[in-house]
């Protein structure tokens, strides 16, 4: 249990997927000042992360044992397919949810956070339960980072930054500051 909670805390705060591991930056920088969008994107991401964690785990355990060199290809293809199946299923059976999350699902396929999760859980030899905790933590961490970025940008959209900072400069400085703020969590859980 202690191990699982360490994985969780470490993934959400200490090694936040976006702010420390640099995964899923496209959506992180692409997110505008709309918190609702960030939440939905985060939620959709978490969902896909969970899906990926499970499918990647089974792939590793039963299919890729003898052919580890096919991992990258297998993961990306399976993730893409899984997302597409889910997209269709959600569209058919949960149209309300689809309207909220649907447009993000295809984007997520090429989100490096998803593939990164699969690769990291493989290289760390996580069990299925650990992988699930890892996925939830990663999703939560992504959602947190996205929401923080969105709410800060909501504010900076009302301000008047210098011309040179308007395009990406300020966004990267924000990311840097956020990343610094997360440095305070370093060592959490290993200090005892």
């Amino acid at each position: 249990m202690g191990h699982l909670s360490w994985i969780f805390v470490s993934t959400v705060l200490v090694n936040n997927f976006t702010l420390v591991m640099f995964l899923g930056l496209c959506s992180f920088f692409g997110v505008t000042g709309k918190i609702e969008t960030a939440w939905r994107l985060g939620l959709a991401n978490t969902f896909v992360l969970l899906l990926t964690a499970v499918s990647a785990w089974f792939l590793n355990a039963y299919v890729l044992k003898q052919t580890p060199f096919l991992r990258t290809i297998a993961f990306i293809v399976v993730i893409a397919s899984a997302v597409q199946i889910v997209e269709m299923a959600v569209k058919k059976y949960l149209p309300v949810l689809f309207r909220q999350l649907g447009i993000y699902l295809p984007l997520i396929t090429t989100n490096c956070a998803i593939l990164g999760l699969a690769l990291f859980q493989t290289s760390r030899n996580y069990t299925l339960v650990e992988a699930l905790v890892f996925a939830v933590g990663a999703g939560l961490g992504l959602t947190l980072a996205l929401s923080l970025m969105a709410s800060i940008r909501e504010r900076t959209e009302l301000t008047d930054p210098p011309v040179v900072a308007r395009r990406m400069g300020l966004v990267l400085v924000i990311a840097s500051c956020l990343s610094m703020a997360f440095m305070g969590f370093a060592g959490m859980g290993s200090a005892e």
Partner: protein
Amino acid sequence: MTAVATAPTKADTPPFEPGAPPPATLIQDIWRGIGKENPVLVQFLGMCPTMAVTNILANGFAMGVATTFVLTGSGLFVSLFRKYVAHEVRITSYILIIATFVTLADLLLAASFPDISKALGPFIPLIVANCLLLGRAEAFAAKVGPVRAVADGLGMGLGFTLSLSALASFREILGRGTLLGHPLFGPRFEPWVFLMMPPGGFFTLGVACLVVAFAIEWRKKHAVRRV
């Protein structure tokens, strides 16, 4: 040339493809990725590796070379098969091609430079998820001949490598006081550890963006003055 004269030549060219890139010389195709459409500093594509591996120059450079390899290889293959790939499954096919080349890059790197391969870890396989690759395949390689596709891939790759190397050099020089592992400033140099850490990654790219934006503004201002 008048419109009448162009009509027959049009029939000889391949069927019109919407969004096909305008014709250009090979040099232009290569130069585009380095300058005006620099994937890192202008288009902000492939940010994850840009920041994750640029803490030292060797890693940044290796990542750049690996990406260039994948860009060129996948560009070539996408372009070669562009007429045979059905429209409905093209993205899947592109991903398959890209993933293949990424795997090749991963294996080759692990065989030749095991230390760098270990340092880059999962970020080599993660090249698959770099939007730059799918973007170039879809927007360029799938619409032009193999030579141009390779040129474009090479250009984009060079632009990527150069930007990554520049960022990585900055981070390594100030963050460690070394370049490619060689100490530059002697033993009393105080490294700026900040640049080695995640916020330093965001910061370095941020500064690069500010500098690029400043240069653009400066040129704009001076262009106006000249007029």
